[in-house]
């Protein structure tokens, strides 16, 4: 049995265990515990293929829509690979962005512009919160928290109508982390019913700079939930980005390792896994 399969089984078991434990335990949960439970509950699958549309909304409300397929793969060693391959409009068809996060914390990004030739180009963001391709998202925003880098402080729960949230402040453990992300604090809102994070406020020096909200949250399995719409609003730029997930498949066959190979990415005539 492959390593990833053990990982998967482990995560599933842990998810099951947590799901059997009532959210309102007798002992109050710490911020860290809530975050841990949330991550293992909702990031159960290491192989995800999603067809998405990304809508960029400028300050005047004008929209720029792109369609893409997102491939995500968590390797056995903990390496996280994300490949975004754009399918529409025609002029950007097959443009791809490959982001890899290594277990040691460093990451890389490469871009493929088919009109420029068959080569992957290292693409670096000089920004701490390196937003990608004109959107308000950083790749990290779409990945689970690296919990080792943060202190989690539980704040007063929030209630509105029938909804109840745990409120947690994530504080970088080091200046390096703060410098790398550009945030001095994140306030995370976790639904008490399913431990799903549906809102994150990003602060820099006490100022709210952007807000991510998750919508159309659907149950994936008994414990896991996933949002079909993620919105990131950048207050400094008066700009927002919305990612709508039209379909989602969890399966290794749809996200083979070869998909992330440079030749595969640049060979845009190659047949890509289809839904």
């Amino acid at each position, binding site marked *: 049995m492959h390593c990833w399969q053990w990982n998967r089984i482990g995560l599933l078991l842990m998810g099951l265990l947590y799901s059997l434990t009532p959210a309102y335990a007798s002992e109050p949960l710490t911020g860290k515990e809530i975050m841990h439970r949330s991550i293992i509950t909702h990031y159960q699958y290491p192989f995800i293929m999603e067809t998405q549309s990304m809508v*960029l909304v*400028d*300050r*005047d409300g*004008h*929209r*720029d829509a792109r369609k893409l397929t997102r491939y995500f793969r968590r390797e056995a060693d903990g390496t996280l690979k994300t490949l975004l391959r*754009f399918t529409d*409009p025609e*002029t*950007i068809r097959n*443009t791809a962005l490959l982001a890899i996060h290594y277990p040691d914390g460093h990451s890389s990004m490469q*871009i493929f*512009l*088919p*009109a*420029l030739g068959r080569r992957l*180009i*290292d*693409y*670096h*963001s*000089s*920004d*701490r919160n*390196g*937003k990608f*391709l*004109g959107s308000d998202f950083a790749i990290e925003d779409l990945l689970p928290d690296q919990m080792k880098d943060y202190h989690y402080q539980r704040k007063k729960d929030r209630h509105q109508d029938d909804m109840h949230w745990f409120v947690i402040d994530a504080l970088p453990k080091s200046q390096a982390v703060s*410098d790398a992300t*550009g945030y001095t604090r994140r306030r995370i809102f976790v639904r008490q019913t399913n431990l799903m994070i549906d809102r994150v406020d990003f602060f820099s020096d006490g100022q709210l700079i952007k807000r991510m909200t998750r919508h159309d949250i659907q149950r994936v399995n008994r414990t896991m939930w996933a949002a079909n719409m993620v919105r990131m609003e950048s207050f400094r*730029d*008066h*700009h927002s980005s919305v990612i709508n997930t039209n379909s989602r498949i969890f399966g290794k066959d749809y996200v083979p390792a070869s998909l992330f190979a440079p030749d595969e990415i640049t060979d845009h005539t190659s047949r890509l896994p289809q839904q």
Partner: protein
Amino acid sequence: MTNPLITPLRHRIITVLLIILITVLCGIGLPSLEIDSGFSSLISSTNPDKPAYDKLVREFGTDSRTLVYVHDPALWSADKLAALQHLHDRLSHIAGVDHIDDLFTVRNIRADNTANGSGVTSGHLIDHLPTQQANIATIRQHALANPLFVGNIISRDGLTTALILSIDAQADHTSDAAVNQAINRALEPARANFQRLFQVGESRINAELRQLLLGDMGLLAPLSALILVVVVLLMLRSITGALIPLITTALSLSWTLGIMGWFHLPLNILCAMLPSLIIVIGSTEDTHMVAGYLRALRSDTPHPRLAAAKVMVHELGVPILLTIATTFIGFASNIFTGMGLIREFAIASSIAIAANGIITMMLVPVILSAIGSKKSAIHQDASAHHGLPGIMVRMFQHANQHYPRLLLLAAALLSGVFLWQAMNLKVTNDPMSYFQQDNPIIAQSTLIHHDLSGMSMFYVSLESKRQLAFQKPENLEKLVEIQQFIAQQGVFDRSTSLADYLMLVNRAFHHGEQRFYHIPKSQALTAQYLMTLHRNTLRPVVSYDFKRAIIVVRHNITDSSTLNSYVAELRQAAVSIAGPSLHVRLLGEGLMINGAAEHLISGQIKSFSVLLIAIFLLMSMMFTSFKGGVIALIPNVIPIILMFGIMGMLGIPLNPGTAMVAVIAMGIAIDNTIHLLARYNDLSRNAASFTDAVRQTVAEEAAPMVTSTLALALGFAVLLKSDFAIIAQFGALAAATMLFALFTNLLITPIVMSRIRLVSLHRMLETFWQQRSLEHSPLFADMSQYQTCKAILISESRKVKAGEYLIQQGVIERCMFVILDGTVEVIRHSNGEAVKLAELGRGDLVGEVGFVHDALRSASVRALTDISVLRFDYERLRTDLKYFPRVMSQLNFNISTILGKRLHAVIQKLGNKKEV
């Protein structure tokens, strides 16, 4: 008939109460008075580009920018950058600041050849403050390598940087003044950190204009008042005389500002000179009235003040009303200009002149009748002159008596030369040109222009009907071509477009090689490159759908003529390069403001034409002859030509200030002409010849004209102290024009006047009443009222005391008399015996035989009571009625009838004698 202008004197308390009531009502409107130092009033209301500009601003953001200039030799050090970021943070929190373009917000894309192979790095130039000097040096290097940054937010030497603030005060419900204050507050703590730090932008310019406006109003008005008091005291030696203009000015200002408050008419920068103008212009009428009052003072009457006030109103009422009307027309003529600034000032100043006129006509006689001097210190003989006015009067009289043709020729030549010089006239409407050259804002703008790029900007907007048009290489190449043309023009500092961004990206994706600094070869590659750029980066240069793209052009041209000509050249080239598929427009607030300069010329022509026509018609009506209209214009058009010539020679531009000089100066200068013509009209009725009448007119009117003109010129010269260059230029030119007008009025008007006889309307009206008493006179039988008036106006009025002879027997003189009042006897002396032939009274004609026939008088006519007569001179009648043949023939017919009847009576008398 009662003179209506006497009414305030008849109801003095009611008049005062009425003025107090109006003043109180106007005072209530004062708190609503607004000050407008904004730029919108500098744009012509008829500008067709305004809607397109507004749309463009909504789409691409405002071109109202404030630039914070930061210079320091150690700019690229951790401390300085930290201080700069603190400054950025403070500025970004100011309400009204939409966004800031600076080292911390601009995004860079560059080749990153340090990576394995090659790569591209994209993101903010400074995302977080570096602490290591090596990192700082790297960022500096990146900044200087980006052509979009150099000359824009960083100087070529890297020692100067700019924080460019996009201001949208309206969106944040704040004001320019508040934004300016907030920016200054934000700058204050940072001043110690940098060698040089200042801000220049629309909000500061507006705030400073507003401050200067208030400062000017505070300085110029007291200075003008002081000069006025001194001049009046010197001239009239009357404290009341000096106080009256101050009272009328204060009331006029209250009325004007109150009315402006009520009707929400804003006080703009040109209004800074309003108090001075009212003091200067309004005081001339007051001075004339006070002088008239003092001249009319008689100590032997029971109520000397009231009597003198009445005489003054009777004598000066109509001419002063006329001068107020012409001055009002002069100011009001500017309403026809398309520029809000001038139009608003024209409305404000017209209200002020009208208010001043009403107050003067109503209140001055009342004040004089109540507290006027009882003793006159001025010389009773108006034609006796001393001092400078005396010298000038004698000089003028000598010149126009001895060298009339030479003077006319010189005036024509001079006008020609100055008209030619006027062709060099330049036009400008740039708000920066409103400031004096020594204003710090000018030096700072120049520094910005030198180290970075000019503060002023405009857009070349290109629009296609097709979506994604500006992803196509051919259209992007057009942007490049237009930008190349802009560079070739060599007058604009820099231009930026989508093409620059794409060339930069293309270079970055090709290892930073300069040979790849060109437009991507395909639309697909452009689209893929564009994915690497944030929409906010592109928003200032291309629309979201890529149908519209703009080229942002920055410059430091403050001369509208130069700017407009280069912009016209650019427009032509851009249209040609863009081709039929793209619609090209050149837009920008600055362009519209400078474009309005062209409207200054057309507005000037329109206003001046309206004024000329109005004055021509008014004067023609006043003197019941078109010749009167022409005469009134000649001496006043020449000074205007001289003024434009001087502007052309000295390079003084036509701007919103100087553009008003012509009409305002003419509206004022015509007053002297009116006084001259009115006096000449009076004198010519009684003088022996036109030449004598002219001589007498100049002798009487020159001194007050010289004095009032010097006072006016001094009053206008006060405006030279203004902090606004345009107001100072207005003051200097208006003062000069006043002096030119004085010269032409005293040199040219008398020469022209002496060749024409004028009949004023008010004289005509007086005559109308005279002719009522003569309606049964046989001389005017079967003549209409107009014909009778016309005939009477050719006559001269005479008074003869009882016992004196009107006609002496044996004398040759070709004139006849109509008796207006009293009785005469006709006596024939023969053989030492006097035979009374007849006794005649009102309406009767005497001396008609001598009139028609050049022979010795056959009898004498002696007054039995004090009599008034009209004297008809044969030559004058023949000359003056040449163009009125119906009047002439009817008069001749009536004289024939009278002679026939007399002959018949004589024959009958002779027949009776024979029968006896």
